[in-house]
């Protein structure tokens, strides 16, 4: 009986359920096993249930690795909680391992006494060898100290699909749904959302939809019927601010934010890009939004991509380009042209691990100094960084606002962690979004291409097609006002000053840096970009422990918020965790002559909360 598989939903078996305030689950398997999808489904369902959550996908390197090998392991970690959380969790409580390689690779992260669910069907000679195992861990006792549940997942899946018309390769591929069904049972989640989703997804392939749904149910029923699990878990809905929520990852938030900026500015979006990990997703998503009148241009290289965006901007579009470190390096000469001609342009750098090709699928924050200084001559540019997946939306809108208002190219920074990670987002209504409209210059009366606005110092945007405003721009130094070529020494000094002053004045408009916790004291943990979650989690925890520590997070890296220096001066020590060797620390030390406790981590991985908590303790000890 326990080996038969029912695929019709039955009543939940009477088992004790245990309430948890949070749980971290990691689904791990071969690239082909569909773990990203499985984790994604578990995430959306948990979102619908009302948990707060945070996810961390981890793919193998771009190039495909052989099946069953360690480099081939793909994993998806999701943390669900009944209170508001900020990271995908340090160590998983539950590990679903679809093959030996997945078990080997992920085991070290698992909590002591954590739950392991393994697909025994994959634990054969060949796969053990591929995973570099001499003997079978399920038998050699090496899993002592964990709660191991062994399931013949593949066999069960096949059984569930006996008589189904889908071919056996497809049958086998649907085993991830069996695992998902099990997870749903174990954590008391409803099946319906995934059922609906499968129906939507395969609406032209009913047989496929049916098969997957059957397997999903089978997994659920398996747990329900067999005695394998003697307890179920529940994680209550979190007390999140009221409102409508969706789940979103960083690249989607960026893509949607760009379309929103286009709508709110009334300017057509022109996105020039050349595919590169981890930025390609933004190009691909925006390309699907053609009905919003956006143009995507997949260029021959990064240089053409940014040049086309500059050309589009000259024509009156919202010119944007996206890339990652190596591609950004290639764009710099052209970006410098935009600095000189003072046209709006937004450059998104989805940072990855460097230098050079580095580790393309791993995250890093090490391009800050590159975007600040990687151009010849004095070439100041505003730089903004998103602190989380959903924050990409707000931050890109702000980047576009600054670029349009000040006629200046702006850098938007994100990274692989923010780009691929996801979290619930209390999304806004379109009409609540900032109004980004600007006016093109149309009046020939007194028009000069480099006559500046008194407040912002921005020059007029006079687009081709406007009668009477015919003018020429270019990369040579311009005379102040008239904008014709000038080699005059005093003019060059003045224009250099004006380009810098224009960027500096943005500070007058940006919100002051907010300190969470005491406004002054022994220790401030300062961060920027994707470290926000780990820092917030760590500082909250440290404060609960009664430690005197505050935190603040920078979105604006150039110019800095006007009160930054004063904030820093209010604390004895400033701890600055960065996924680099201390790049923001360098800028702060130079600017404020304040000793900054740089806390670098350069492993291609985000900080985990515990690392920062420990550091806080050490500093305050």
């Amino acid at each position, binding site marked *: 009986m326990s080996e038969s598989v029912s695929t019709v939903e039955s009543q939940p078996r009477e088992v004790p359920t245990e309430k948890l305030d949070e749980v971290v689950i990691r689904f791990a398997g071969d690239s082909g096993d569909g773990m990203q999808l499985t984790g994604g489904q578990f995430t*959306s369902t948990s*979102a*619908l249930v009302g948990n707060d959550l945070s996810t961390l996908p981890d793919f193998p390197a771009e190039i495909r690795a052989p099946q069953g090998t360690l480099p081939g392991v793909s994993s998806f970690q999701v943390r669900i909680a009944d209170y508001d959380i900020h990271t995908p969790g340090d160590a998983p409580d539950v590990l679903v391992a679809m093959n030996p390689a997945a078990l080997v690779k992920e085991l070290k992260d698992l909590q002591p006494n954590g739950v392991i669910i393994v697909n025994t069907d994959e634990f054969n000679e060949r796969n053990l060898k591929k995973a570099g195992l001499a003997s079978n861990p399920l038998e050699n006792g090496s899993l002592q100290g964990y709660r191991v549940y062994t399931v013949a997942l593949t066999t069960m899946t096949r059984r569930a699909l006996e008589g189904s018309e889908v071919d056996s390769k497809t049958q086998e591929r649907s085993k991830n749904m069996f695992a998902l069904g099990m997870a749903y049972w174990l954590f008391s989640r409803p099946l319906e959302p995934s059922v609906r989703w499968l129906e*939507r997804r395969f609406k032209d392939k009913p047989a496929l939809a049916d098969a997957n749904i059957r397997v999903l149910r089978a997994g659920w029923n398996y747990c329900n019927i067999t005695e394998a699990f003697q307890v179920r878990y529940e994680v209550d*809905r979190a007390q999140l*601010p*009221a*409102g*409508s*929520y*969706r789940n979103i990852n960083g690249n*989607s938030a960026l893509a*949607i934010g760009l*379309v*929103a900026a286009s709508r709110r500015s009334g300017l057509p979006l*022109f996105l*020039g890009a050349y595919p590169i990990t981890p930025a390609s997703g933004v190009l691909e998503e925006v390309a699907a*939004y*053609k*009905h*919003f*009148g*956006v*143009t995507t*241009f997949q*260029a*021959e*290289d990064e*240089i*053409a991509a940014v*040049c*086309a*965006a*500059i*050309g*589009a*901007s*000259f*024509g*009156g579009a919202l010119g944007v380009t996206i890339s990652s470190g190596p591609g950004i390096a290639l764009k710099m000469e*052209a970006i410098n*042209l935009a600095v000189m*001609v003072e046209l709006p342009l937004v450059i998104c750098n989805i940072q990855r691990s460097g230098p050079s090709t580095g580790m393309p699928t791993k995250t890093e924050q090490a391009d800050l100094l590159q975007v600040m200084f990687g151009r010849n001559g004095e070439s100041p540019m505003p730089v903004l960084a998103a602190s989380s997946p959903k924050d990409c939306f707000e931050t890109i809108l702000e980047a576009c606002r600054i670029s349009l208002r000040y006629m200046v190219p702006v850098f938007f920074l994100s990274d692989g962690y923010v780009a691929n990670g996801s979290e619930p987002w209390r*999304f806004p*209504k*379109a009409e609540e979004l900032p109004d980004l409209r600007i006016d093109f210059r149309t009046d020939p009366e007194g028009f000069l291409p480099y006559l500046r606005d008194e407040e912002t110092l921005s020059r007029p945007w006079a687009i*081709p*097609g*406007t*009668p009477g*405003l*015919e*003018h*020429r*721009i*270019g*990369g*040579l130094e311009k005379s102040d006002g008239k904008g*014709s*070529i000038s080699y005059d020494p005093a003019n060059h000094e003045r224009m250099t000053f004006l380009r810098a002053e224009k960027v500096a004045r943005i500070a007058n408009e940006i919100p002051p840096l907010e300190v969470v916790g005491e406004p002054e004291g022994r220790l401030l943990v300062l961060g920027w970009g994707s470290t926000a979650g780990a820092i917030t989690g760590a500082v909250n925890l440290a404060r609960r422990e009664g430690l005197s520590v505050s935190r603040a997070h920078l979105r604006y890296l150039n110019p800095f918020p006007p009160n930054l220096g004063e904030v820093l001066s209010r604390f004895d020590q400033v701890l600055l965790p960065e996924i680099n060797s201390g790049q923001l620390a360098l800028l702060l030390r130079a600017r404020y002559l304040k000793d900054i406790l740089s806390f670098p981590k350069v492993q291609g991985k985000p900080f985990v909360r515990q690392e920062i908590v420990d550091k806080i303790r050490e500093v305050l000890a």
Partner: protein
Amino acid sequence: MTTEAPVLAKKDFQSDQEIRWCPGCGDYAILSAVQTVFPELGIPKERFVIVSGIGCSSRFPYYMNTYGFHTIHGRAPAVATGLKLARPDLQVWVVTGDGDSMSIGGNHLIHTIRRNVGLKILMFNNRIYGLTKGQYSPTSELGKKTKSSPVGSPDYPFNPLALALGAGATFVARSVDIFQSHLRDVLRRAAQHEGTAYVEIYQNCNIFNDHAFEYMTEKESRQEQVLYLEHGKPLVFGDQRDKGIRLNGTRLEVVHFADGFGPDDCLVWDEEREDPIFAFMMTQLLPPAFPTPIGILRSVPAASYDSRVLAQITAAQEARPARLDDLIRGPETWVVE
């Protein structure tokens, strides 16, 4: 924007900037030809944009009283592509040199041509880097002695028109700075083409590469050295029009009418040939064995890149409503009270 044909004159296209080319530079003649042709096109002045890279030739926009963008070295086609995609209503002309577009800008050039972006590209070929004071360029002859090649250039040169055809060009032409009326005709034809119109213009740099094209521009030798391509006419040339080009098997050869050949033995020029083979043959007519062909080598209709991209967007807009709120909301949401 609607195009009411305004009455414009050459002077309308002359800017107030004082021209800074060397006296005697071929660029002056080209500038004059362009300033003569533009007013004839019945397009409002503000609708013209000239995009250039870096080089003596690339100073061109400053001397045209239109919108202009003097960009960076080699990137003009890329900037112009973005501009044309964003603003299909504009007449976008690219002015570039043999270094700017054949050397550092080679990739953007061939990709622009491949995509058939609606740009007119004027390549001023003086076979030298003028602005940087005389280094050899990708069109300089093998063995040419220049500042950077004291014992002669070790590079085989590009055949620009062959490269353009290899990249899939739909409009290819060649003219010469001082052949004013011929040049103007070619420019008019380029202006009419929907896709990328690639025009090579032989231009004399009298400072660093004087006499580069003398062999064919000198009054005496001109008729002997130049092959005027005329659609539908046999490929005949010579002072007495007593020579022609024929195809012998797959080989081109010069026939002398004195030897009993006549125009009927010669290939009849067809600039509209759907495949690029015939045009490519013309690019292989090289001195001294053959006269140099000038005129239209290829002119075939093909939807421009910008028109295809625009069509995709329009279709999408007609197919789906675009509500920002829907986009932000996404497929799945939940509510927290």
